[in-house]
């Protein structure tokens, strides 16, 4: 085990290479997930604060024929 970590005397070079690669790749993944979560929360809050315009329009469209039927 000690021999494995010693890397034939090149431990500093080998392990810092693997460590840096892990740091960059995990760091990017974590930052990406955070950004995605944050954006999704903001979008939910925005959608919750007011009904989306399209649905309102659709409800209006659905309501008017019914009204016409009622009038007829």
């Amino acid at each position, binding site marked *: 085990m000690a021999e*494995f970590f010693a890397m034939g*005397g090149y431990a500093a070079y080998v392990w810092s290479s693997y460590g840096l690669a892990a740091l960059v790749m995990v760091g*990017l993944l974590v930052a990406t*997930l955070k950004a*995605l979560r944050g954006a999704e929360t903001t*979008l939910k809050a925005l959608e919750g604060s007011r009904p989306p*315009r399209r649905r309102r329009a659709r409800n209006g469209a659905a309501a008017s024929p019914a009204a016409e039927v009622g009038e007829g």
Partner: protein
Amino acid sequence: MHRFANPARFQRLSAAILPWTAGATVILLIVGLYISLIGSPRDYQQGDTVRIMYIHVPAAWMSLFVYVNMAIAAACGLVWKHPLADLFAKAAAPVGAGFTLICLVTGSLWGAPMWGTWWVWDARLTSVLILFFLYLGYMALVNAFDDPQRGTRAGNVLLLVGIVNVPIIKFSVDWWNTLHQPASVIRMGGPTIDGSMLVPLLVMALGFTAYFITVVLLRLRAEIVQRKIQTMRLTEAQG
């Protein structure tokens, strides 16, 4: 291709693909790390420093692969105004920059014990450093405009101009005298590297590719949500 240009369809499709690419990334990287660090022999000249290759070379391949993909997306974005193409280049840039950074630093960490120097200003190393600056320049340019569309257009032009650097990197080891060795895997006449070292190299390269696809899909999803937020805020502001 245009069938996938619809962001809503993309969100559905990427949700279906993501678990597979994420799983493939984890499995490939675990297997790759095991055979790179334990399952492969040390080099008879370089000893254990040869294990740096299993990070360095796949990262170098990825730095070029990502750039070429971004340049293709940039062309599609400029010619067809493809909405996802612009977002793809923006989403991929930090990942490409990350791989280039890994390539440069591990190269330095490999060069120090084997060449006796951390850095030389020769063709290969300098052209890869320029690639790194192209990534950073693109990221800065895209975010430098108030109007995101002008930003991506300027960024796309930079990506297309910077593509001349890709063949320079690839052939720099043949065109100029350099400390860096010539290609030993992707070359005419097949690889000159032994199977016991080629296998970990290829598994790590596949793992990096799966990682790239996973992270880019996640970043694209975030970009699309961000665009939606922007439009909602705009319509809100305009009443």
